[in-house]
């Protein structure tokens, strides 16, 4: 069976200029060019985008699930990074 040999691609669409590309889903294709054309047919049938990225899923390095890995923990006890941490006198109206 050849299907399993077709790599998986992740598809990202820029819906209009000025916005960043957003992940919309994935698809299988034999090569990059086919992935791009299939992404157009599959994810932009109603003019949902002005630009497309297709990325082989295997090329993505992902963090582990938060269930298993304290990867994001260093950020959790640093509440002083948020503006709400600081109390201002009422006289200071906007800052």
């Amino acid at each position, binding site marked *: 069976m*050849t299907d399993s040999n077709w790599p998986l691609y992740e598809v990202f669409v820029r819906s209009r200029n000025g916005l960043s590309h957003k992940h*919309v889903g994935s698809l299988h294709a034999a090569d990059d060019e086919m992935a791009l054309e299939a992404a157009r047919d599959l994810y932009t*049938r109603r003019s949902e985008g002005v630009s497309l990225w297709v990325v082989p899923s295997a090329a993505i390095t992902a963090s582990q699930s938060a*269930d298993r890995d304290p990867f994001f923990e260093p950020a959790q006890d640093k509440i002083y990074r948020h503006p709400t941490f600081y109390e201002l006198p009422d006289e200071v109206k906007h800052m």
Partner: protein
Amino acid sequence: MTEPSDIQQLEARFESRIDADDRIEPQDWMPEAYRKTMIRQIAQHAHSEIIGMQPEGNWITRAPTLERKAVLMAKVQDEAGHGLYLYSAAETLGISREELLDGLHSGRMKYSSIFNYPTLSWADMGAIGWLVDGAAIMNQVPLCRTSYGPYARAMVRVCKEESFHQRQGYSIMLALARGSAAQREMAQDALDRWWWPSLMMFGPADADSPHTAQSMHWKIKRHSNDELRQKFVDATVPQAELLGLRVPDPELRWNEERGHYDFGEIDWDEFWRVVKGDGPCNRQRLANRVRAHEQGEWVREAAAAYAEKQRQRQQKPRDAA
């Protein structure tokens, strides 16, 4: 590797996330039963979209106008797209595309029974869009909030596209209902044949639905089969009246007290017969699907060979340098 106490902890965390309406994502730990249920449901849904192309594909070459033909082709193409979104969502649970297709082709996995009924006239294109897609929307809108992230996201896309399907179906019914006596008869005949199978799309009655309780607990399903079926009847009967067509149920009447329509009992023998493979078109639908897959084998092989050749060509100059 994983201690039983760890499993208990993971289960507790999973349950608390479900309770908090958090979404479960592919890499997260999930109970095996949740994973299995999710694969079964998403795969069945994907297979339904793919098999669902056949009854309508049957009428593309015989659409009455060029416009209707273009619309029908767009709709059938959407169904293919929905199947692909859903296969991708299922694959995030660790099952391959190949296993999914094999499950369909071998009959091990199911698809919606509605597609095992034949499309005998052009009016069936109207009835399918109006009733079958209408029932599908009732089922699918709550799934946009289902607890598994990739499934919910796929359903958001599907639902956006599905409302065009229902409207185009109703527009076909409207044209026929406002047409000649023969056309009205055609529309009525389609409603007669599709009404009950459409009600069956919501699945067995709650009392006979083995998966409902667990699926609702896990927030995979948000409403029971009977709740959604009632909602569909309530929404659809006035639309039939507007068409001037008669819903083929002598027991159908408005119940002032309940604020809902009462309706007759589904023929559950027929329901189970079609589910178990003995509907009017089960064998034909599956045989068509398997044949299409087998006849497409050379295309897949050619594409893979071409991709390999391109890859080698790109590599050569670099190796030489």
